[in-house]
């Protein structure tokens, strides 16, 4: 039932209290720096920063693991690809497989970098409610409004989409159950047959979703929503001293990471 993305972990850690905008900026520049710098020493600095952030977040390790698990295959694949196909003088060769020290080193570096990146990204999503995150993104995207990009409307759309993911999953489960109760079997047969069996599942799901969209739009209008209006917020974005500290520390970490 859980979406395979790092979910928000409700809490009151210093990181939870920070402005989503500063968190987003910090994570973005860290990610860029992480890719600019290609040495183990630099990676070690960023990894240390990520571990400190993780410790400050107060999020249990199991939540991090849950966010991380779906990406494990990506890390594994990166590692394998580098080990098997990287350049360098091979010390071991069988068939098309050539292992080299250079290849092993590159594989370790790239997969570790991916792990650090995911860790940093998860700190953001685990300590920031999705709505605050979309609000922050909408604010950061404001310059785009000049190009007539409806950033606030997009942010609201994303919030609503996130809100309805669990509902849709429950609904899809119910539809499949109703059809299993009438003899459908979604586990039998080849890929083609399974795909065909899903068509009758998607039809009611779509019909219900369109009706939901209609009713939801009506309920929003009944509460005075109109596209293009200027909305205020119950929780306005507010940057404080903590955000200044965060950005200063991010700058320090990046400087250290790039210079070591």
């Amino acid at each position, binding site marked *: *039932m*859980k979406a395979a993305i790092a979910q928000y972990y409700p809490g009151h850690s210093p990181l939870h209290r920070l402005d989503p905008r500063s968190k987003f900026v910090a994570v973005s520049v860290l990610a860029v720096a992480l890719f600019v710098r290609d040495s183990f020493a630099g990676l070690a600095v960023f990894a240390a920063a990520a571990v400190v952030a993780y410790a400050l977040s107060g999020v249990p390790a199991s939540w991090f693991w849950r966010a991380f698990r779906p990406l494990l295959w990506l890390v594994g694949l990166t590692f394998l690809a580098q080990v098997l196909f990287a350049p360098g003088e091979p010390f071991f060769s069988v068939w098309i497989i050539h292992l080299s020290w250079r290849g092993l080193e590159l594989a370790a570096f790239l997969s570790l970098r991916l792990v650090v990146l995911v860790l940093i990204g998860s700190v953001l999503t685990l300590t920031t409610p999705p709505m605050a995150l979309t609000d922050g993104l909408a604010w950061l995207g404001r310059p785009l409004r000049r190009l007539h990009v409806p950033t606030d409307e997009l942010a609201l759309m994303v919030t609503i989409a996130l809100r309805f993911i669990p509902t849709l999953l429950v*609904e899809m489960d*119910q*539809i499949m*159950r*109703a*059809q*299993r*109760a*009438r*003899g*459908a*079997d979604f586990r039998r047969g080849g890929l083609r047959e399974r795909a065909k069996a899903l068509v*009758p*599942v998607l*039809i*009611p799901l779509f*019909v*219900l979703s369109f*009706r939901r969209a209609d009713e939801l739009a009506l309920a929003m209008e009944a509460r005075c929503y109109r596209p293009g209006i200027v909305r205020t917020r119950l929780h306005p974005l507010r940057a404080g001293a903590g955000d200044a500290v965060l950005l200063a520390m991010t700058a320090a970490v990046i400087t250290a990471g790039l210079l070591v």
Partner: protein
Amino acid sequence: MSAARSGAARSGAAPTGGTSLPGMALECRGVGFTYAEAESPIPALRDVSFALESGGTLALLGASGSGKSTLLQVIRGLDTAEAGAVLLDGAGPGEAAYLALQRQVGLVFQTPELQLFASTAREDVAFGPRRLGWSETAVEAAVDEALQLAGLPAAEFGDRHPYALSGGEQRRLALAGVLAMRPRLLLLDEPFVSLDPATRRELAAILARLKGAGVTLVLATHDVDLAWALCDDLLVLDEGCVATAGAWSAGPEGARVLAAHHLREPFIVDLWRRLGRDPALAPRTAAEAADALS
């Protein structure tokens, strides 16, 4: 396999309007179930035990979230009991006939739109029988019979688009889709929700006819009055546990159990008590009550 054969054999005879449908005995022995993905794994069902004889009618009452829907899904085999067992006609999950028996358990879900997907009513109802491997003539006969039973005669409704039907008609079409598989045990999850009083009466009449035909019925509902009119047995669930199970006695014990679970007594039972008559002898329907009072 055996279901397919017996189905084909039965439909070989002329459709009889369902009057010869047999029932099925149901027994739950210490059934327990927990949703794996629940935030906090509190069991949805705990040690649920009751028995319902073939042709019996059971009202399943309880607050939202008390486990009514879960129990229906476990009985149908969509979820597997992690403790205890569901016995169908006395057979347990390990026995050879069990799968075939499970296919003769029909389950109608609460939201009809979740169950409809084909482009005509006829096609939608045919979905189940086709999965049973019946011959096309047998499927056709079963579809016509089921549509008739559900009060949607094929000549008038067969070619209509399911989504173009009214709410009440959709509800009955979803029922027809299950009836076409000739269930011997029919499980209904909140069939009366969002229906106007006339449509509710029509649906109740259809269920009464199925009861008369000998089909075993389990009716999960919040409508105590309709449940009282249709069901002889009562099962009240409270947070996944059985609060009471057995013949629906309208005596003081029954009143106490209902009150303890935010359920009111059936109107007629309440009336009988206030008139100083024995509530245990309260009739089931307004017509019977009027006979007794006039």
